[in-house]
């Protein structure tokens, strides 16, 4: 019942048969999914699964070799630079290390998009910056330089900057990576608060299971460039798919496939790489 009300509106992001390659190596092999309005979609995956490539493609940093990526009615795979700019002003991205500009203070970092894209007065911008910083719990830190912040604070500042233009979609790249459990829990709580306060749609790429199950409405598991499972978190939690179970139950990769490949690995001539 609740599902159908949300489903009736068009999805905010629509990915169809997406293929992305780095040079000759194809990373994503024809992925399709949707992000519905107002939901938090968590993209789970191991290292090398292609989840970072997927995020980079969604925000327009990589061009797909095939397929379509529809964000708010624009196919960003084929959009002109000015169309892409218009979409980017409505989207906020929080990068893995924060990616705050080291030469600007926290306040100046958050103010940057407002300063460049709007004609608001400096005093208005300052107030808006303070609002965003307060929202992420960094109310008194607007004069600090990014190098003076801890890891968790940098991530919070990055979220504040992503929120500066009141985006309709937020992307998070590994928001809890490298943080201790308490700080990570703080970031998770922040993400849930944002969903309540702003009704934004969010795509969170992570491999932290605890965070994922806490914040997700729907989840999607990527493995080796393909979607292995997609559904609500309840559906994934009870899935019988072996790759899903391996990921969720934290089962390590088997060490040796068979004796022949083991011998081959030991005795073959390795080419030296530059």
């Amino acid at each position: 019942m609740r599902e159908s009300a949300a489903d009736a509106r068009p999805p905010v992001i629509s990915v169809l048969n997406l293929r992305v390659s780095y040079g000759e190596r194809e990373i994503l092999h024809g992925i399709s999914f949707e992000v519905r309005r107002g939901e938090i979609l968590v993209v789970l995956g191991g290292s090398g699964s292609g989840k970072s490539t997927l995020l980079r493609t969604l925000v327009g940093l990589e061009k797909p070799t095939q397929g379509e990526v529809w964000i708010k009615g624009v196919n960003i795979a084929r959009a002109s630079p000015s169309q892409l700019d218009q979409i980017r002003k409505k989207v906020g991205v929080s990068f893995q290390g924060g990616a705050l500009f080291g030469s600007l203070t926290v306040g100046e970092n958050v103010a940057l998009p407002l300063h460049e894209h709007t004609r608001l007065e400096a005093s208005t911008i300052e107030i808006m910056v303070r609002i965003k910083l307060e929202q992420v719990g960094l109310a008194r830190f607007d004069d600090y330089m990014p190098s003076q912040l801890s890891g968790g604070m940098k991530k919070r500042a990055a979220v504040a900057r992503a929120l500066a233009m009141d985006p309709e979609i937020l992307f998070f790249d590994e928001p809890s990576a490298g943080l201790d459990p308490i700080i990570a829990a703080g970031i998770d709580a922040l993400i849930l608060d944002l969903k309540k306060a702003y009704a934004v749609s969010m795509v969170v790429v992570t491999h932290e299971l605890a965070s994922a199950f806490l914040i997700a409405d729907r989840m999607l598991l990527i493995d080796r460039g393909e979607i292995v499972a997609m559904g609500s978190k309840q559906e994934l939690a009870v899935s019988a798919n072996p790759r899903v179970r391996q990921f969720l139950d934290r089962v390590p990769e088997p060490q040796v496939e068979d004796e022949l490949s083991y011998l081959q690995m030991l005795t073959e001539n390795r080419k030296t790489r530059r």
Partner: protein
Amino acid sequence: MRTAEKITALPGRLGFETLESLAYLGRLARLVGQSARVAWLAPWQGQRLHSQRTFHQAMAVGVRAIPVVSLISLFVGLIMALQSAYELRRLGAMQFVAAAVAVSIVRELGPLMTAIIVIGRSGSAFAAEIGTMKVTEEVDALETMALRPVAFLVAPKFTAMLVMVPCLTIWADFMGVMGGCFFGVAGAGFTFASYLEATRTALLLRDITTGLVKSALFSIVITAVGCQEGFATGAGAEEVGRSTTAAVVKSIFGVILVDLVFTALFYFTNRG
């Protein structure tokens, strides 16, 4: 067999390297073109100029370089005076020391030494700054905020360098002449006034303008190479070091090459 293969592979390598160099020149030209469009066309289209950032860059590139440039130019002027006096003394023509210093400094060494100093200070700084921003995903962050990295990072540098490097060159020319003057008064029988008079008569306006044109071109080369190497940085701290080194070395080579081309050009167009 191996030796024969290596020899026959040489033309291929040469061709490959030539094509790579042309591709590199193309990338530099694209950077210059995009920056020029941002710096000069965009204001007419109603987009904002990043004047504060340009000013900040100009301070770093120009004003803070004055102490180094002054000292080095002073010493170079002194060196040129000493070297020319060494020969002129044997010919009993010490009165030409001032002219020798003036011409060599204003036409060649002023622009060139200034360019080398700016490469060491600013060319490396551009590569390191942009390279580090690439490694920390700050360049990606700029793109996702609809702020073009070239417009935001590179165009202010170009504008600042185009203004500041010729100014530094003029200052270097002056300090070089002063360095020569020091020797002229102390060891070549000039007075301060007679040295300056000799300098003035030795110089043509053409000498000064060719020096300034060269310095403007040098500034373009230094900025383009520094920024291009910064953007081409791979992942990790080691890459930043590598691209900074590459920026300095390639800039020096580029500057000398431009110097050769334009000195030859000025020679052949002014033989009359």
